[in-house]
């Protein structure tokens, strides 16, 4: 089956890439190395440079500085059609005057593939996206999810070593988006191509990626596996962008770690092993789901502190509390609903605890 042959993905590298529009820097000294066959998401808010990076890679935008490599090929300066990358667009960009079959066949026709082989490969592609009998439909007759599948098949039908996806699921509703994420992962495994995926949706990035490249202000803020990004953010920006978190100011003095907001002093040795333990101020990240209520009897087992409930937000499987600490800082805590006992009401004072190893020090920008 020609279509399902795992095409070998190629690496993608940005080396010191810069892009300015007049005085505005859309991309600043951007370095990124994507391994062959890897699925990397570029994650960031709008204006973070993620779309510019993708456009530079696709050839729609020329970088002002730096080098862009696909495999061993330097591609900066090449027009899009010479780069041999597939691309899926947010608006699908299916050709409205061509039916599903001809849309998917489009890249093959341009590559001079014989009519017979085109028919075979497009049929395979239609089977892969489970739209085998819809080849004659026009794009206007398809649902959003079907359009997305056709766009995907069209982008990979010529077995490009690199596939670019520009917020491809942003227009779909939540349920469909989640099932499409699972499909994309499955296709990725099957096709073996390298995927660079742009999104502003952190949940999507966490669910899909082999690695996430978090971007901000045209720069790469951090690149790592979803778990490492979530558990060990390397900057305040990343900690606040990925998931919800509580940032606590603390001070290290000798072997003591003082957290004034919680009125606690802990041994520095309790912090995660990899963290810096130099004397001085330090910012700690404590995820809301890592904080829990403690009963009177447990008070000795965990470092604990008091806070007043300001607000409780019901989220189905979870309840999210906004609490006020004695020094007036707010704290967010999420709790699974199956936790026993009565839920604290607004205005109640609760006793909260956490494990010291869940305190993640945020390196200060050097």
């Amino acid at each position, binding site marked *: 089956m020609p279509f399902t042959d795992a095409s070998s993905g190629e690496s993608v590298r940005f080396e010191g890439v810069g892009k300015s529009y007049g005085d505005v820097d859309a991309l600043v000294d951007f370095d990124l190395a994507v391994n062959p066959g890897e699925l990397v998401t570029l994650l960031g808010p709008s204006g973070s440079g993620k779309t510019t990076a993708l456009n530079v890679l*696709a*050839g*729609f935008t020329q970088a002002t500085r730096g080098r862009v490599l696909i495999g061993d090929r330097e591609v900066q300066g090449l*027009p*899009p*059609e010479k*780069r*041999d*990358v*597939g*691309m899926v*667009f947010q*608006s699908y*960009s299916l*050709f*409205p*005057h*061509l039916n599903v079959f*001809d849309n998917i066949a*489009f*890249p093959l*026709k*341009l*590559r001079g593939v014989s*009519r017979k082989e085109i028919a075979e490969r497009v049929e395979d592609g239609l089977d892969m996206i489970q739209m085998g009998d819809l080849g004659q439909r026009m794009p206007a007759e398809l649902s959003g999810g079907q359009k997305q599948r056709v766009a995907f098949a*069209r*982008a990979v039908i*010529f077995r490009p070593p690199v596939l*670019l996806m520009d917020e491809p699921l942003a227009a779909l509703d939540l349920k469909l988006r989640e099932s499409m994420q699972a499909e994309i992962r499955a296709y990725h495994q099957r096709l073996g191509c390298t995927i660079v995926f742009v999104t502003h949706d952190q949940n999507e990035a966490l669910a899909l990626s082999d690695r996430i490249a978090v971007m901000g202000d045209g720069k790469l803020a951090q690149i790592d596996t979803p778990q490492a990004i979530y558990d060990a953010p390397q900057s305040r920006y990343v900690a606040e962008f990925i998931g919800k978190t509580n940032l606590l100011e603390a001070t290290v003095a000798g072997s003591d770690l003082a957290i004034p907001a919680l009125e606690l002093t802990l041994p520095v040795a309790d912090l995660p092993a990899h963290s810096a333990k130099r004397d001085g101020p330090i910012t700690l990240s404590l995820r809301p789901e890592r904080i829990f209520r403690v009963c009177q009897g447990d008070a000795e087992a965990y470092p604990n502190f008091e806070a007043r409930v300001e607000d409780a937000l019901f989220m189905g499987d979870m309840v999210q509390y906004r609490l006020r600490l004695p020094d007036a800082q707010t704290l967010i805590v999420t709790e699974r609903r199956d936790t026993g006992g009565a839920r604290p009401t607004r205005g109640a004072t609760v006793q909260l605890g956490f494990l010291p190893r869940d305190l993640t020090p945020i390196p200060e920008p050097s």
Partner: protein
Amino acid sequence: MPRIFRHWMLWPALAMLLVFFLMPSVDILRASVMDPELTFRHFERFLERAVYMRVLWHTVEVSFVVAIVCAVIAYPVAYFIVQSPRRVQFLLLLLIFIPLWMSILIRSYAWMVVLGREGVINSLLMGAGLIETPVRMLFTTPAVYVAMIQILLPIQIVTCYSAMSDIDLGLVRAARVLGASPWEATRRVFIPLSLDGTITGMIIVFMLSMGFFITPALLGGRRDLLLANLIEFNVTQLNWGFAAAIALMLLLAAIVGIVVIRLAARLLLRALNGALAR
């Protein structure tokens, strides 16, 4: 709300059409066969006399040529405008629109000034010593063509422009990254998607040409008269029945012309898609 009131917003337009279009049309139809009693002699006369058929054919020919030349000139112009930055687009469209604000009569007279024996072109050529005696341009068939094309071109440009500005340029980008050179992307995506609007423009220009009357009268020779000129002549002669019969023949020819343009467009589109298959 009762069903009949649902489309009340259309009523003024429908009333207008009924009174000022449908009723006069029926009246013309009646006049063509009821002058003075039920008879087909006006149509017979039209079909039997070679001169009338020749004018009919000439009218269709002129209209087709004008429609095609306008489309060929307008398409690249509209493409250029669509590709320009927004501000420039506005300015260019304004320039295209300005001639439309002048009446056809005035523009036809202006062409007499330009093309005449002592006109602008002849004076320039003679002043430059390129010719000894004035070239005869006025009262010729080319003069009619030039003026009609100049008069109708803005309409075709604007129709093409509006069709092109509706095209999502993201589609052209998509074609590029999927492997199409700039020309391939234009041929396989942009042209097919802008063809419908271009054809609509051609039909408008064709229909307007079929009714042209002042311009051939002022700028053409005796053999450049169009059907509309014959209608006018017969009306002034109070040959109401024959004038009505010519008008109906003109209408029939226009309908046939539109069908032919539509068919040609479909063939062209198929040829473009066929070329795609290779």
